């Protein structure tokens, strides 16, 4: 994958059901982006450029897959790309889109499209790996540029990228934040995969679990902690659900290391 033949690696971006916030992160890269462009060529980035191409090495896929048509499109992308990277919470774990699964499709339609007589195509929100094979994951809602760069570099030099298997707390403590639990608040950090640099706790908010539950989360331990802090079981599950409902509803787990 390296630039041995001095051929630039061609990267294409695609988005599905999502807010496009993760793609937007890349526009904040600036000088770094320029450095990266020495090695890669961006051939598809709908939000910024008009040209399109089907000839690419790496496909960075953002968003959850919902409708039949999207399914076909992502399969086509998989066919064209050597490497598929799921980019952002919606693509990696379903993210907030999963919340829709609290309702049946019909219920959701009734709530949002009351009085509509025309047909409406929707589908079950799914992380990308539920539809096609994913090679690497860049988690987060939104993704963190530092991690994105780290992952892209690692993938480009051929070592691949494995996101941390430890919880957000690890990064949080290294930053010497006052733990939210010590401020009488509750946090999802202990069961959430790190890699964001404890973004939210560093700014005084709780971790909402956007990077997905750990492979081996201490769910019982975290539940005990929350219960001790006066949360009911229902409120507690809600906390886990914000980003992780796709996984919690028993859809295919994120595959372990590739």
């Amino acid at each position, binding site marked *: 994958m390296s630039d041995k033949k001095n051929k630039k690696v061609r990267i294409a971006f695609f988005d599905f059901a999502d807010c496009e916030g993760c793609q937007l992160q890349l526009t904040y890269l600036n000088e770094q982006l320029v450095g990266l462009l020495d090695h890669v060529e961006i051939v598809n980035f709908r939000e910024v450029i008009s040209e399109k191409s089907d000839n690419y090495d790496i496909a960075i896929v953002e968003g959850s897959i919902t409708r039949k048509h999207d399914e076909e499109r992502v399969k086509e992308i998989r066919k064209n790309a050597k490497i598929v990277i799921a980019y952002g919470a919606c693509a990696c774990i379903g993210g907030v889109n999963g919340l829709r699964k609290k309702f049946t499709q019909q219920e959701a339609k009734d709530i949002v499209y009351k009085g509509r007589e025309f047909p409406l195509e929707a589908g079950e929100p799914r992380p990308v790996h539920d539809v096609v094979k994913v090679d690497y994951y860049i988690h987060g809602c939104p993704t963190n540029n530092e991690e994105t760069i780290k992952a892209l570099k690692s993938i480009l*030099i*051929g*070592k*691949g990228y*494995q996101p941390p298997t430890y919880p957000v707390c690890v990064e949080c403590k290294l930053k010497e934040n006052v733990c939210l639990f010590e401020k009488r608040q509750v946090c999802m950090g202990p069961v959430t995969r790190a890699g964001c640099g404890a973004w939210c706790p560093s700014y005084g908010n709780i971790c909402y679990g956007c990077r997905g539950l750990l492979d081996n989360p201490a769910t019982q331990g975290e539940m005990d902690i929350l219960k001790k802090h006066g949360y009911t079981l229902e409120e507690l599950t809600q906390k886990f659900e914000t980003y992780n409902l796709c996984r919690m509803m028993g859809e295919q787990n994120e595959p372990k290391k590739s």
Partner: protein
Amino acid sequence: MQSKTLKKGKTIPADFLYSPRAATIIRTKQMTANEKFFEIGFDDGQPLGQQPGQFIQLSIFGVGEAPVGVCSSPTKKDRSTFEICVRKVGTFTSALHRLNKGDKLGVRGPFGRGFPIDELKGNDVLIVAGGLGIVPLRSLINFIIDRKRDFGNVMILLGCKEPKDRLFTDEIDEWGNMLNISYACTVDRAAPDWKGNVGVITTLIPGVHIDKNRTYAVVVGPPVMYKYVIAELLKKGLSENQIILSLERRMKCGLGKCGHCQINHLYVCKDGPTFTYAELKGLGEAL
């Protein structure tokens, strides 16, 4: 107390402890689907100066480091090179497998405590190798062969999953032909054309004849193997001090600092990787 005089932002040489020495791959050989053999020489021509059983930290910049045992003997004719054999299991090892003759890599070490050569001298040696365990043991075997008159009888027991997994097959036959060296091999499962033993390695032990008063057993293999082999060896009457093992743990620094390889109070990288069973017995995390 020492005087404290350091100036701000002083540049210090990257310390040799953490900085690899430059080396070049002289020769490679694909041994099996997953194992590759490398002959490596330092660019400054210096010998590695290892003891059998010691290991090095290999380094590919940008990818990282990994510990590997040295599989050549310090008595090897061309002292300016050494040999390793690595199984592809993860990121680093995959990157290493992509390297070939002429490629450069970094080497730190040798590290750790090798096999207790001085104690083995003058005694019989029973070598028990499971799977990849033959790799570090090869350096001991070759050492013994080169210093044959220093040692008594040598028996080699080899075990692996399937016949195609056997490493150093050409050399093994040679070892078998050597005076005073006997060897037996077994596989866990085999195709019908396999003529050798079938079964786990422990099944070979009851059949070997050893003089329990003058035999050391040197055992290297996957973690699961040790418990059973040790039980068999104890049955043969060997004492805990006569059983020598080499352990594998996650490692980062190789210097007894980073903590990854710790087994109870022992650091595998510094106190080991070779231990006598007596040293490990009773340590909850060792075997």
